[in-house]
């Protein structure tokens, strides 16, 4: 299995917000989900995941709540706030612009 590549600074926030857009998840589940959805290409290391979660929470984009997991263990679940949803849309837009721009450069150069 190839080692999942490290992520660009800033894309972590985007991925976390996107992952949380369907349901509330705890940190472990977020990292697993990102890995899974990217077909094991992307992996968010704990060293950037948790600071990012705390930063997003302090910025008011996400909220947290202590809940029991299916296995009955208590964990900290994060969920998008209404402002977080808007922020996600903005970041998705700008990401699309960026990637299409990069794509254009790659195609034409």
């Amino acid at each position, binding site marked *: 299995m190839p080692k999942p590549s490290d992520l660009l600074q800033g894309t972590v926030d985007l991925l976390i917000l996107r992952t949380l857009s369907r349901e509330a998840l*705890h*940190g*472990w589940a977020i990292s697993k989900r990102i890995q899974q959805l990217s077909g094991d290409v992307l992996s968010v290391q*704990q*060293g950037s995941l*948790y*600071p990012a*979660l*705390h*930063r997003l*929470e*302090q*910025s*008011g984009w996400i*909220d947290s709540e*202590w809940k029991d997991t299916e296995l009955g*263990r*208590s*964990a*900290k679940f994060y969920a998008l*706030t*209404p*402002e977080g949803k808007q922020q996600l849309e903005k970041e998705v837009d700008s990401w699309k612009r960026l990637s299409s721009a990069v794509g254009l450069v790659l195609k034409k150069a």
Partner: protein
Amino acid sequence: MTPSRLFRVWRHRVRSVSDRDRLDAQLGQEILFHFEQLVHEKIAEGLALKDAQREARLALGNIPLLEDQCRDQRRIGWLHDLWQDVKYGVRTLRQNPGFALIAVCSLALGIGANSAILGALRTTLLAKIPFPDGDRLVLLRTYPEWNPALSNAASIPDYVAWKLQSRSFESMGASIADHSRDFGAEEDGRPAERIEGHGVAPSLFATLGVQPLLGRTFTEEEAEIDHPAPVMVLSHSLWQRRFGGDPGVLGKQVRLSGSNLTIVGVMPPDFHYPLEETEYWIPLGINRFQLQGSARYFEVLARLKPGVSVEQAQAEMDGIGAQLARDFPDRHKGWRIRVQTLRDVWYGWRKTPLATLEGAVALVLLIACANIAGLLLARGTARRPEIVMRMALGAGRGRVVRQMLTESVLLSLIGGALGTFVAWGALRAPLQMHPPLAGQRITDVVVDLPLLALLGLLSVVTGLIFGLGPAIACFQLDLAGPLKESTRSAGSPYRRNRLQSALVALQIASALVLLIGSGLLINSFVRLAGFDLNFDPTGLLTFEYRIPQQRYVHNVGVFQGAPYSAIDPSPTPAIQRVYEHLRAMRGPESVAGISLPPVNSLVLNSLGFSIEERPMPQSAEDRNAYRAVYFLITPNFFTTMKTRLLRGRDLNDFDTAAGSWVAIINETMARLFWPGEDPIGKRLMLEVVAGERPREIVGVVADIPTRRDRAEPQPVIYTSYLQQSPAYRGPIANMFGQMTFLLRTSGDPMSLVPEARSAVAEVDPDHAITRIQTMEQYWGGGMRDKRILAAVLGVFAFEATLLAAIGIYGVMAYSVAQRTREIGIRMALGASSHKILALIGGRAAILISLGVLLGLAGSLMLSRLIASQLWGIQPTDPATFTGVSLLLIAVALLACFVPARRAIRVDPTEALRSE
């Protein structure tokens, strides 16, 4: 940012500070959960528990570091830094307790006093006029062209013309003090009582915009000329006191000073006009002669039309005044009209003393700031290695400056907190001030929220002001230099010294301004207190006995512009009976009476006179010089006052109406009118009135000051109360029916009051004695203001001098310490200690003289502001200026003494070896 997000963000921030422990515990839990999931995953992949745990730990890396990184996301960096700065600041302050103590105390005094005075100024500016739309109320007063500082009320022709011709006002009303009236003793036991009231034009109530609580006010018909209706309106307090708040009081007839009046209305409890003590109102009783008169006794109040400014009204009144002067020159020529807001009259007087105080306390705060800034600068030098080290280690300049500012603001906040107590104490000063006539007392200054806010703001601003200089000095640091070299010769000491020197010169200058101000006040206070009164105020009881003037004063016309009255029936026998009864008292050593209080009387009667066998001067101005203050006295007056008789004799019981008429004059009158001559035996004629006879001067007495605020004595004529004509020309006809009695005792004067009261009641149960006070109270009452102001300024001046001394000591000590090496070299090369002293002293001399010159210049400009508070001394009094400057120079030199001695004791070998 949306409000809900803002709220969320701030909730996190607050929690980050207040709920730190719980957040940290949760963070640990969160990471632990992740760790457990990792372990589970590894076990699922087939590892043993132990191996799984090891793998998981490896995968997670440095857990405390991860937790730290998470914690760093909490947005409380600035708070954390602040807390660190404060802790650090407290620590540095505690290392220099002496510095901290001086700084905090002077700041507490400066900030507290400033807040108090500014608070008092604020309430003065915001003070509400207690009438609807009170800011449209103006007083219309007159003043003579030759002295615009004077302020007179209006005459009836003024009032009538103004009311008829002006367009600026919605309505206009006039009032005049009614001569106090007496309720007689009632059968049900209520004692006789004297009350003060005013005659008012019916339109006055409408002008003020107030409605009575009960009944009505007056109709225009009730103020008919010559025949005012016998009706009255009661104040709320009088209604409560005398009538028990009986709602059936309307329509009741009361007997007041011998006339029957019907009560038609009661005013609401908060209505006081024109004076606080006005307790009843009657219709303005104008007589036919007053319509032509020029006596200016009527207070005219008007309400500006909406949208009309005071300036517009003033312009209109200027025109009306000029027209009146052209039409009726003998009445109005030389007089102008002044439109002044009621607010200004009531509260304006506070501005000058408050501004004086504010100037003083602002200077104290300025000195404190300069002082602390100087100390911080000096300390900054000592701390330079520390600061340079911190900057070299990566601290931003902003961060270092912020830390230094935190320290200074911390100092000033502690000072401000203590200053609350100072403010609380200092607020008592404005409450003690005596308003002039018609001014309102200050009663509404308290420590309230706005004042505390002001205090806090002042503290922070102060801290920033004195902290900024030293903090900016950090920017001028050469980073590389100080680390390499030793700290002593580093940086730019001269620039720093210049700033420090300027601060010291500023302190000396400000201290001198304060010292001169308080010196002038103290000087005039001492003059006033030690002023030869020419009478002995201790052991004298004074009170007034008065027969209502309605009983005996009959206005019969106007003669040469002044009211002419018949005095009939003469009140003299009644007064004589009271006097005889008082003389029969056992308590007092001697008893005498005088028509108006001999000192500090609110009204003084002056009279024109001529001298027998001396022609009157032709010009009106020179003729005006033939005027003197005029008093009626009983025998024994000068004995009772203990006033020296310089020549001739006192009045005695043989000076009766039937005997030859005599007069006693004061020293000033003798000097002015008979220079180098003996006035005894010369004869005077008082202003021509029917029945007046020439009076022979039989005595000359020392000057008794008529006014406490006037150092220059006026000429005074005293005559016997028994030798009076039955006619009088002048405004104060009521002086014939009143006496201020003086009772001298060796004991407590107030102990005579019950006996005196019953002695008078035996003769006249209907007229109680009033204005009972000792002569010391009479004379000293107004001295208190001067004493308080002088004392307050004195305290500030002392503080300022002390601070300036500390400042100059600091800068000299620092400069000596800095130049130790230089001094050592000079001494090693053979410089004498004189030379060294000259070197050090020269700098001190420059600083001190610069400061003193600045201070003198400032004082010359500022001392005029307290001119009105001075007595018998010029605001530029050379003696005070010189004396106080010398005092300050001496103190400053003393402060230089220790550093200078240290300089000449420098051991050259030691100094050279030290680097």
